[in-house]
Structure formats: C-alpha cells, structure tokens
C-alpha cells in the first residue's frame, strides 16, 4: 500500500496476532483503537498523532500484515437529509428551539456533516443526542418516536 488515506478504515487481521510483532508503544495504541469503524484520521486525532506519525505507523502495521482494509464501498450510503429534519423535529418537541443547535454541535463533535453522514454512524448520533435529554422517560420517548422511521435505513 503506497499511501494511507485519512478516510481509510482498518481492522486487525484475524490470521496474525500483534503480540508476535515487535510493536512500539504508539503502535499498540493505534492497534487498540481499531474497531472497523474509526477512520485513520479519527484514530490520529484520538491519539494526538500528526500526519507523518500516523502514516508511518499504519504503513508499518500494514506491511507487517497485521491490518486488513475494510471495504466500505457497499456501506457508503449517506443518510438522507429528510432524516435529519425528522430527528431535529422530534428533538424540538422535547427540547425546544435549542434542538437544532444541539444536533449541529453533536455532528461537529463526530466530525461529520449532513452531506457525508454515513448510515452506519447514525445510531451513534442518536445515542449522543439522547444523552442531551435529561429526563430518562423522555429519552426513551425520543428513541421510540424516531425508531420506526429510522428502522428502514438502519436495518439494511
């Protein structure tokens, strides 16, 4: 692999154990972050690594055949805009006008926006939005209200 793209996602190669390789502390830290969902960029940010460091570490792990690139081509469905409108509406019913601001803040925190929101990350957004609602009864009410509409996108 010539270049490590910041949007690539890796998982550990189940045929090889990292324990058999002589990994440095930071390399172990990267390995511990791999979950088949986080991108290279997100891992770099989580570990406060610069571009050169993260590229060097991933190249070493890939060349040692410890990592497998996740094929995201079939999962690249982007969440439709109407779903954000719907979620924002349901949030507003519970939290008032501040709901749309909270939605944007949470998406910022996830480093995603409405144009590139991967369907697989959407439950994570719902999780974070639910945590913004203080009342546990309303938390469940929110999730129960939005679930029937979300289901068709999430259970693909």
């Amino acid at each position, binding site marked *: 692999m010539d270049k490590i793209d910041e949007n690539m996602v890796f998982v550990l190669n189940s045929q090889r154990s990292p324990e058999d390789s002589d990994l440095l502390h930071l390399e172990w830290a990267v390995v511990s972050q791999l979950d088949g969902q986080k991108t290279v960029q997100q891992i770099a940010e989580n570990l406060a690594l610069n571009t050169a460091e993260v590229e060097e570490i991933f190249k070493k792990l890939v060349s040692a055949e410890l990592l497998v690139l*996740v094929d995201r081509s079939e999962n690249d469905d982007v969440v439709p805009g109407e779903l954000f409108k719907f979620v924002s509406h349901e949030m507003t019913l519970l939290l008032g006008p501040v709901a749309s601001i909270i939605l944007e803040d949470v998406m910022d925190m996830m480093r995603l926006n409405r144009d590139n929101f991967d369907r697989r990350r959407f439950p994570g957004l719902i999780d974070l939005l639910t945590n913004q609602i203080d009342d546990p009864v309303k938390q*469940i009410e929110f999730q129960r209200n939005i679930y029937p509409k979300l289901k068709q996108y999430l259970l693909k």
Partner: protein
Amino acid sequence: MMISKYLNDLTLLKNVEAIAIYSLNNDLIDSWCDPNFNSKVLDELSLHYFQVFATLDLSVQNFQEIVITHEKGHFYARILPDMLLIIVVKLPVEISLIRLIVNVKIIDLLNSKALQKGLKKYSTENKDFLNKNILDESEKEYLKKLEL
C-alpha cells in the same frame, strides 16, 4: 420464541450472532442463535456477567450495561429487572444500534405475559446473584473490602 417476537429487529441484523435472556438465578429463559454460533458459550458468558454486575452492585456502581469488545466483535450485556440480556455481535456493527433497538423494544418484552410466565418458573427471590463458590482468593479478598 420471546426473542423472535419482541427482539426480532436484532435477529434481522446480519452481524448479530446470539441473543439470550437469563433469570437472575442464571437460568436460561430464552435464546436465539445463528446456526454457526456455539450456544454453550452463552451460559459461560452469562455467569461471568452476573459476577461482574453483582460486584459492581456491591461497590455501589449502578451499571446497567457492559460491553466487552474483542478483536472479532462485542459481547453486550444489559441487566434489567429480574433478568439479564446478552447479545453477541461480530464486527462491523455499531454497538449504539444494538443499544437503540434494545431501548426501544425491551419495554414490550418486559411487559409481555410470556416473559412474566417465564420468570415465574424460576425463583428470583435471591437478588444476591454473586456466586462466591467460583471466586479465587484474591477476588474473595476484594469483595471483603467492598463489604466493609
């Protein structure tokens, strides 16, 4: 049957391998497994989760959910009134999707007559579900400190 009826959406997820419901005395009430999954693993998992939840309870940490991540997936456990729910999933799957479905669907299951009937079969009077017989010395010592 209960899982297929009330948690059907979970069984439809291709990466969900097994789901089980246990009474607080570690009796299996219902389970669903992918044909490729070894169901014997579930009993052992539930026992470990009971130990962990009971220990957390002793240390007054009100954990309702524990997710253990391993290189191929996650073990998700939720302690509920009178029962333990265990879900085994393989990667790639968002654990927040599992949590969302459980949150939305569990109420109907908890209120179902089928579950109430299933729970009645097993005594749930013993709320102290920690099995002290399988603890080693250091674990016993740790618990002793918690109880002080």
